[in-house]
Structures are given as structure tokens and as C-alpha cells.
């Protein structure tokens, strides 16, 4: 299923500077994520997964190194173009969904299109269509607080996919769901977010969904310590060996 390189991360280091200390978080990451792959980033809390995925998405600047998305060096762009690039080419699914509570599901799904200046009527129609594809078209007029956790997650997925992005970044997309709902969400992601010209990177601790991965990258202390189809048997997701 793998094709062209979707995400190319080379020599990426990241340190956070506080008043008295420099805290290195990533120590030099080199990975290529192929288009068509569903790639997992796993590792204990504090291993650097979130930092790495934030850098991949262009919302955190690396201290060193380059990140290319589909051949484009995103940190060579000025900030304005990078933000526009994100809006056009990247879809986000957050652990807490971060849906806007005062607009309905269709409008939440349509946010990236509305942000891009698409006519509201067309954007809402596209949001509705995406909700239909995710089998919650009948919930389109409901507000987030009227939906179950699984339904909210589907709205978040619809929002991530509505503008047809080439890269989808997911942060613990199944953490708040039961096993059945979690697998259903992964089915949908696998069906909709992965393709020949696109890729999906998922940060997760959820070993119930590991079998969906085309590739699993294990991180530890700011380094990739394992790269394969499965997680090493001895690896414990709480970070203890």
C-alpha cells in the first residue's frame, strides 16, 4: 500500500527553553512516512510523541532539522503561508475533539471549509455529506453536547476530512471510546484518511487498535527506538519495560 513519501522528518531536534534550563525533548528524529500508510506513534508519556507530531503538523517549530510534507519544506515557508498550508493540506483529530459547543455537528464538520472562505451554504452541504459518509448524517443538526462520545469523535473526524487533506494527524483518537467504538473509528479512518496520495499519523497508547497500523514507531526519551509493523512484546505503553 505504501507509495511516495508523505512526511519526511530529518535531523529534527527540539528543546524547550525555560528561565533556567534548556529541556531537550527530541534528540534527532529521522523518519519517512509513506503515502498510503497508517502510521502510529506510540510511547510513554514524555517520550516526545506530541512534540514530534506537532512539528510534523507545522504547529511547532523544530530547533533543528527539516520537515517536508509531500516534498514541501514547511518550515521554509513564512508563518502566514504555513498556516494556510495547514488549513489546506492537514486534517486534525484531537483527543478532546475540541468541537465548538454552540454550533451543530454539520457546522463543526464544515469549519475548515468555512475558514478557507468557502460559501457557508456549500460548506455546510459538504459537512453534511461527510457526516453521511461517517454514518451520522441523522445527527447533523445536533449540538456536541447532544451527541455520545463516539458520535462526537465522528464529527471530529468529519471536520478533519471535509476539506480532503493529504495528511491527517490524530491525537489519541480512541482514548475516550470503548473498544467497539474505537475500532469503528479506526475503520472509518482507515477507509477515509488513507490513500495513495495521502497518509495518516496517529499518536496513541491504545493497544486495542494496534492491528490497524501499517507501521508503528515507538518513541522513548526523544528518539525512535522501534520501527516496525508491530510493537515489541516487552514494550509497555506506560513506559516501563
Amino acid at each position: 500500500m505504501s507509495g511516495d513519501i508523505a512526511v519526511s522528518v530529518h535531523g529534527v531536534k527540539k528543546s524547550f527553553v525555560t528561565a533556567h534550563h534548556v529541556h531537550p525533548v527530541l534528540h534527532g528524529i529521522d523518519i519517512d512516512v509513506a503515502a498510503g500508510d497508517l502510521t502510529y506513534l506510540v510511547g510513554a508519556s514524555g517520550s516526545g510523541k506530541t512534540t514530534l507530531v506537532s512539528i510534523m503538523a507545522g504547529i511547532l517549530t523544530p530547533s533543528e532539522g527539516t520537515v517536508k510534507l509531500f516534498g514541501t519544506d514547511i518550515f521554509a515557508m513564512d508563518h502566514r503561508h504555513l498556516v494556510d498550508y495547514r488549513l489546506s493540506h492537514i486534517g486534525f483529530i484531537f483527543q478532546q475533539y475540541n468541537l465548538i459547543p454552540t454550533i451543530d455537528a454539520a457546522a463543526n464538520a464544515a469549519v475548515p471549509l468555512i475558514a478557507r472562505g468557502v460559501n457557508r451554504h456549500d460548506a455546510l452541504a459538504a459537512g453534511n455529506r461527510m457526516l453521511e459518509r461517517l454514518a451520522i448524517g441523522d445527527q447533523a443538526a445536533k449540538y456536541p453536547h447532544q451527541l455520545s462520545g463516539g458520535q462526537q469523535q465522528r464529527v471530529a473526524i468529519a471536520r478533519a476530512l471535509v476539506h480532503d487533506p493529504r495528511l491527517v494527524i490524530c491525537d489519541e483518537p480512541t482514548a475516550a471510546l470503548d473498544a467497539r467504538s474505537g475500532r469503528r473509528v479506526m475503520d472509518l479512518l482507515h477507509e477515509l484518511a488513507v490513500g495513495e496520495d495521502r497518509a495518516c499519523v496517529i499518536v496513541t497508547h491504545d493497544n486495542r487498535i494496534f492491528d490497524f497500523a501499517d507501521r508503528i514507531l515507538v518513541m522513548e526519551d526523544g528518539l525512535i527506538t522501534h520501527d516496525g509493523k508491530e510493537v515489541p512484546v516487552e514494550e509497555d505503553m506506560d513506559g516501563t519495560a
Partner: protein
Amino acid sequence: MLWIAIRMLTGDRQKFFGLVFGIAFSTLLITQQLTLFVNFLGRGTTAVYNISSNDIWVMDPVSRTPDTALAMPSTALERVRSVDGVEWAAPHLREGATVRTPDGDLERVTIIGVDDTSLVGLPDAIIAGDRNALAMPDSVIIDSVGTARLFGEEVDPIGTRLELNDRRAVIRGIVDAEPTFTSQVILYTRYSNALTYVPGARNRLTFILVRATDGTDPQALVDRIESETGLRARTREQFARDGVDYLIENTGIPLNFGITVTLGFIIGITIVGLTFSLFIRDNIKQFGALKAIGVRNHMIRKMVRAQAAVVGLIGYGFGVFGATLFIKLFEDDPTFKGFYTPWQIPLLSLFAVFVILAITGYFSLRPVLRVDPAEVFR
């Protein structure tokens, strides 16, 4: 995105109504208090503008306003009449007195003595009775505010006898005149009659009302009267302004109204600031998510501005409506007779609302602009 911004705002009804209330309350307080302030200051001019036929007021050099005046010798009238450019000069007496109504109530009143023959000094608008009835013995004409105060709305006072400074007075008419700052009952009578009502002092001529001949510049005539008679002369506009200045300098009105208007402003900033901050804080994750998705800070600013504009316009509308309603509800009250809201005041309130929203919006927006989109992954 602005549509989403408005929905974010209006969807959180508690905070939306809190914000609208804050702006509306501020606008109401600022507009209503400034309206009262301007109109109360305007009361300093009513004694002058109730009389339309003269160009100039002449008085003792120490006199300041219609209500703060020292009487002159009666000979002053002839001296003024002898000044070149004076078409006519009429005596005008203003003096305090006490009246006892048929019910036995006591009330402080102002007696105004107008010229015996021309009745110069009597307001033009007679709403009951006849101005010529002043020629009858002991006749007085009462102002409409005084009628309401002494007799209420139901009783027709024409023909009613009053005990005015221990003398008989009969009400022969009602005149429509704006009340003065003190809102005292005003009784108009002939000058010669007025002299019998006020206690016997040597000098009782309070003012001389002067009309300039055609083609004479009132200001030039004012200068001439002052130089030739040694008296103080003011054009109508100058004397009206003197009344306003006196109120500003000698009463606590500017300070009291200023404090209330400032409080309205501070309350607006406090309520709107706190509510807006809470609203932003509650939505900071959503704003962070929008930034991560690719919404620029420029658009976030526009969203917050749109939210502020909606709150501001709705709150301002309610506030101005409330202030207008207040004036409308009390228009029949003698204290507020003739009150209106000058167009500049709603504009001033709008500016205050703009400043309130600019200050609160600025401080509320800062955390949104500073939020790191990467935070949504943490």
C-alpha cells in the same frame, strides 16, 4: 468564520446576556445621566429664554444670574432708556415670596413683575385664561409647573385665591414656561402689583429688559449701556450662558453627574471585561483548535471584533432605548418638563461603548492570540 464567531457568542446565552446587560446598563447610565446633566444645566437658561421679546438684560453690576441678582434703584430704568440705540426698556422684578394655598399649604414661589402696559417679561404661550386679565387687581398668572405642583392635574386653578406674602392674589391664567433650575412655582403679575407683594426694600428693580433699535448691534448696545450707566448689561445669549456657568461653578451637579457617568463606564468595563474574559477562557481550547487547523490570528481578531460588535450594538440599542423610555415616562413630571436627549449624547455613549469594548476586547483577546496551537495536543 464571523458567522461561527457570532454563533459561539450567542450560543452561550448566559454570557451573551451578561455582556449585553453590561453594555446596556453602561449605555443607559451614561446616556440618561448625561441627558439629565445637560437638561439640568439648561435650566440655568430658561428664565432668559422664557422671555422672547428683549435683546438685552441690564442689572446691577454684582448680579450674576436671574436667580442671583441685586435690585437696582428705580432711576436706573430712565438712565437705560436714555442710551442711544435703546428702542424700549421695561422693568422686570424677580423676587422670592411665600404663598399659602386654599388648602393651607405653604410654598416658596418666585414673583415676576412684568411691565404694566406692554406685559414684556410674560412668556408668550398662555395655555389658560387671558394675559390681559393681569390688568385686574391682585391678578397673577401661574406657570404650568406651578399649577401641577400646587393644584395637581385635576383642578382648574383659574379664579383661585392665594395668600401671597400676606396679600390677596387671584390666579387669572396659566402660562406655559420651562421651569428654572430650582423648579419653584412662578407667579407673574404687573410690576406695580409685584411691588406690593414683595417686602418693602428701597431698591426693588431687579432687571431691565431692553430691545435694541433696528440695525443696532446688541453687543455694541451692551457696551454702550455699561459705559454710560455703570450697570451690567448682557445679551440674551450671554446671560443664558451666565446661568449655566453659575450652575457649573456653584453647584455639585458636574461632579455628581460626572461621578455617575464614570461609574457607568467602570461598571461597563467590569461586567463586560469579566464576562468577556470568562467567555474567551471557556472557548480557549476551541480557539486553539481553530489556530491548529489553520485559522490565522488575523481572523481570530476579526472573530473577537465581530463578537464585540454584536454585543456592543445590541447592548447599546437597549441602553439608548432605556434612556429614551426614561425621559418619555417622566415627561409629564414637572421636574423633567421639556427634557430631551441631544443627539450628541447617544454619540458620546456609543464612543464610550466602543472604548469599553476596545479595552475589554484587547485584554480578552491577548490569551487567544498567545495560545500555542500545539497546546491542543497536550
